[in-house]
């Protein structure tokens, strides 16, 4: 079905010169990001710098005003107004981008097991038995196998977020998109979620990771991008970017959060 067969060595994801404005407000002013297979790209920046918008433009939850999105070598086809031209294509591409939200967004009327099997069964057409089997493995992996039949509202934030990660893993994503996955958590629950994400990074998952956890970003990222008012102010390998920032703004930003 993919119309542009993916070249073997294509980057997992390329965002090319993305622009986004909401009315007069220009939130992204030409941002390009590329992640090869296994890359963990951490995106940092102050509040309102456009981090969430960048992530949401990646899977067209927001329609980019201009720019291109290429996943596994397949470019999202868009109309003149920037909206996806082919509904089936964008749905297929979305299903390859496992998104994890700041506020979990689990489906509250479904158990954890049902949350994890929902997309494989009802979007990807996997058989229910196979999906359940796989879901149990994933829940086990995030330490929630014994909660498989529990509804999300009965779980802590950390447990819900781990379940949301299992849900994203269930689609066998090419790229995982994390939007501040620990920002809504009580401090004592942050560690358990970061541990899961670190495991995923270690096993070579490709990720775009928006985070305020600088120490964590430094440890897991292969590249760090600092966004400032909708532009990439500085980017580079984490060690260099954190210990020897060049931009004045990044220096200030790093100081302000320590």
């Amino acid at each position, binding site marked *: 079905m993919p119309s542009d067969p993916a070249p073997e060595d294509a980057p997992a994801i390329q965002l090319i010169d993305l622009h986004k404005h909401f009315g007069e407000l220009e939130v992204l002013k030409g941002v390009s990001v590329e992640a090869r297979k296994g890359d963990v790209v951490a995106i940092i920046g102050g509040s309102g710098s456009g981090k969430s918008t960048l992530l949401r433009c990646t899977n067209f939850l927001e329609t980019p005003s201009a720019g291109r999105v290429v996943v596994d070598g397949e470019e999202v086809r868009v109309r003149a107004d920037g909206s996806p031209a082919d509904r089936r294509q964008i749905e297929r591409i979305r299903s390859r981008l496992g*998104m994890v939200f700041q506020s979990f967004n689990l489906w509250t009327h479904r158990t954890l097991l049902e949350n994890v099997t929902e997309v494989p069964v009802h979007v990807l057409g996997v058989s229910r038995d196979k999906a359940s089997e796989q879901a149990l493995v994933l829940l086990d992996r995030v330490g929630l196998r014994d909660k498989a039949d529990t509804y999300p509202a009965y779980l802590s934030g950390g447990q819900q977020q781990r379940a949301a990660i299992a849900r994203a893993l269930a689609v066998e994503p090419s790229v995982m998109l994390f939007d501040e996955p620990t920002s809504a958590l009580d401090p004592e629950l942050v560690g358990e979620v970061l541990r899961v994400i670190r495991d995923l990074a270690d096993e070579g998952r490709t990720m775009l990771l928006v985070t305020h956890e600088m120490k964590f970003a430094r440890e897991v990222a292969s590249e760090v991008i600092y966004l400032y008012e909708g532009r990439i102010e500085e980017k580079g390998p984490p060690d260099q970017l954190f210990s020897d920032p060049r931009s004045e703004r990044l220096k200030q930003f790093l100081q302000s959060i320590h």
Partner: protein
Amino acid sequence: MVLLIDLSGLSDALELLSLSPPGWGSNLLRGLVHSLQIAFGAFGMGLVIGLFGAYGKLYGGPITRDLLAIYTTVIRAVPELVLILILYYVGTDLINKASQAMGYGRVEISGVIAGIWVLGIVQGAYATEVLRGAIKAVPPGQIEAARAFGMPTLTLMRRVTIPAMMGFATPGLANLWLIATKDTALLAIVGFNELTLETRQAASSTRAYFTFFLAAGALYLIVTLGSGVVFGRIEKWARRGQPSLRGGGR
């Protein structure tokens, strides 16, 4: 002495209500069945109209939204009795005109079908508002998550929005169902032999007004109580996963 009169009165009443002639019990039950058929059909039709109406109001274009606003406003503003008269006479008239224009004679319109149609349109207006409110109460994050995973629109409606809104919609829908059962009584005015009309006929033939209207009242009450139990179950199921405010079990 008083007790004796009472007892004889009771046995008279039982005789009048007996299911086999000369008792009128089977007429009352037939009326009840008709009432329930109409209520059920109208409620179902109302749900379908309501679902489309709610989605139309929330996501439709300006023309759709205006038309729906007129529909819900007019229906909810005009007394039901008047609406029933209008819809019934206008509806049957239109159908007859159409059938005559096409060269057929007058058509006999089944009372049950006409009743469902008339009450269904009324129910649809209220259901539109109930469901619109319920859809709006669904946390947007849940819909966004489904979109982010590439769920197609119809699947999303069926798998996420509708199940998630059911908990919010059930109390309002339970009310609508009870209104539907009782609105069937208004159809007596256009001559449907639903429960109220059957009761009136039995009462006026026998002059036992008190007995028959009390019996009819009891039947309506039983329907209401039974519905309460059923909707209680539905609500409990629809609210699965939401801890109750009183706390406790899952």
